[in-house]
């Protein structure tokens, strides 16, 4: 597999990103951005390879650095072990797109066993990347990753199209919620809350699809202000319809939609769990309550804000995320540079 490069050619590092068929949403969008971004391509050659996590052997890869975006599970451990064994000489990183405190709280009963799984899987990698600062703090606080092996690498699916949108105007009336119709997103809570909101002209549109669709439609039945829409090929076009985006997620490792809403100059109201705390730090509004009445009050407050203040807030939000693409590129450049410069850097024993 050794390639003989012409002596004069600068050797661009080959970075292979592994994804699996279970990936969707934010991971896919991030990979697309990685693959097409010219500035990233200037420093390294990024390619994406889809693998099956349940395979027992690692595929042949022409790579200098391997970056896993795979979902970790007990079933995936044999594959990860095989990958580490076959590419023992290569630096490997893992980007943790899924697991965060809210996920564990809402889905895992046997928590010590789950922590053992994560520690075992993470031990195969030279570096672990969290997709939000808050998720990274959690990984460190629970002893799942040593701070010296952690890098915060916030996701980005490209924000240029969103930055180009005109700012939302006036107090918000068109509320949007975007994402997979899954219990994770808390859209059930949002519908119940919105039904209690008595703001004239307010509408709520849920954009997406998923296993909870029937239940969400039933919850919304009889309230003509609540509508549903499918995913759009152009997320920015969809965003244009909304004055405010609401994310009452029960867990959210990062929350790409939050980044895009702020880039679009929309109001943003989030639950603040996990990675959504990063967006609160950048100016998103926070609702910590987990009941419909808490969200109804927060939506009503949002709709009642002074238009001038709202405008200033939207501008500040946009300013806070205008550098998101640059941050993303710099993060991957740093990851590749660190790993290739010192492959044994902090490698787990």
């Amino acid at each position, binding site marked *: 597999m050794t390639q003989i490069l012409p002596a004069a050619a600068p050797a661009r590092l080959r970075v292979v990103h592994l994804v699996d068929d279970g990936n969707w949403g934010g991971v896919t969008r991030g990979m697309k951005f990685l693959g097409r971004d010219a500035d990233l391509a200037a420093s390294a050659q990024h390619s994406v390879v889809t693998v099956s996590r349940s395979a027992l052997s690692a595929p042949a890869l022409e790579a200098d650095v391997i970056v896993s975006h795979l979902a970790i599970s007990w079933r995936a451990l044999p594959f990860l072990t095989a990958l580490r064994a076959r590419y023992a000489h290569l630096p490997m990183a893992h980007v943790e797109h899924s697991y965060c405190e809210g996920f564990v709280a809402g889905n895992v*009963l046997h928590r010590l066993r789950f922590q053992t799984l994560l520690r075992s899987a993470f031990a195969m990698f030279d570096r672990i990347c969290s997709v939000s600062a808050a998720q990274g703090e959690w990984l460190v606080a629970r002893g799942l990753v040593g701070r010296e092996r952690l890098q915060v690498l916030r996701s980005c699916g490209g924000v240029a199209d969103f930055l180009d949108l005109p700012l939302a105007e006036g107090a918000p009336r068109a509320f949007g919620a975007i994402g997979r119709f899954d219990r994770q997103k808390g859209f059930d809570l949002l519908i119940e809350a919105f039904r209690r909101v008595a703001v004239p002209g307010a509408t709520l549109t849920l954009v997406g699809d998923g296993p909870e669709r029937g239940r969400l439609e039933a919850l919304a039945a009889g309230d003509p202000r609540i509508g549903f829409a499918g995913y759009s090929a152009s997320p920015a076009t969809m965003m244009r319809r909304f004055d405010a985006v609401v994310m009452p997620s029960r867990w959210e490792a990062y929350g790409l939609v939050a980044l895009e809403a702020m880039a679009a100059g929309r109001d943003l109201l989030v639950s603040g769990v996990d990675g959504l705390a990063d967006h609160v730090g950048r100016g998103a509004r926070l609702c910590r*309550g987990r009941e419909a009445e808490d969200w109804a*009050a927060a939506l009503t407050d949002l709709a009642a804000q002074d238009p001038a203040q709202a405008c200033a807030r939207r501008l500040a939000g946009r300013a806070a995320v205008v550098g998101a693409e640059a941050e993303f590129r710099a993060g991957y450049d740093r990851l590749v540079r660190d790993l290739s410069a010192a492959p044994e850097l902090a490698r787990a024993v």
Partner: protein
Amino acid sequence: MPHASIIVPAFNAEATLDATLRSLRAQTFTDLEIIVVDDGSSDRTARIAADHAGEDGRVQLVMQANRGLAGARNSGIQVARGAIIGFCDADDLWRPHKLAAHVRHLAEAPAVGLSFSGSALIDGAGQPLGLAQRPRLWGIRPDHVFLRNPVGNGSAAVLRRAALDAIAWRPAGETVRDWWFDERFRQSEDIECWLRLALTSDWQIEGVPGTLTAYRVNPAGLSAAGGRQLAAWERVVAKLAPLAPDFFARHTPAARAYQLRYLARRAVSAGDGREALRLVLASLRLSRHPLVNEPAKTLVTLAAALALRLFGAAVLPAPFARRSA
């Protein structure tokens, strides 16, 4: 800043508060503050707390109009400065080494957010009843919290501040401070809080060995409260079920069966055989979990309810004449 804060919610507690504060001031771990929250008492509660504050600079008194137990604890948390926060009701006692045991436990187990211990039961005069709460200490999952509440009583838990802040929120209409305990509950506020901690954060709940709390059992007023107690418990379930619908769908019948068995035991203690029998039979119909997992306690409850129904209170042994948890 003190490492530990102990919050003492107190409502008309003049008969017991002095002993409670003496037990807290006598803790072997001394880097602490004691915050007595007088929740609108009409007796000498505030005076007793103020006397202790005069003798010991670590004691402070907070006074408020009555907000209930949850509201008193929340006001205490609001002013607490410690990295760890414990709760002791104004009629209970802490054994001298209790705080030290929890401080060490939390220092050694970074994943644990709530550390608790078992409790010995004492009577109105502070005398041991020879009974104890000895719950499961390790490997506690959210379903254990829901079914058996191993934390046991309001004077057993010591938490990290970070774990409490993970569940803080400010409900609509509250303008002054955050809530940690839900002040809309006047009963079942403990289990609501611990279960919410277990279902919305990944902080572990874990115990330390020993009966480090002396929990005072009050024989008065048991029977009338039963119906309200169950109603409050059902409201907790209704409130939290949307957080984890699958969890509640799976575990609520067994948890309700334990709750009914507990109320049956209280009805036995209160001498109401008819109600006790009704409750224990309702419990058995709901789920076999109590019978399979705690057969002795379940069958004793059934036998006691039957005996009381058939023969009256004279036949019952002493522990049942009071109460057990």
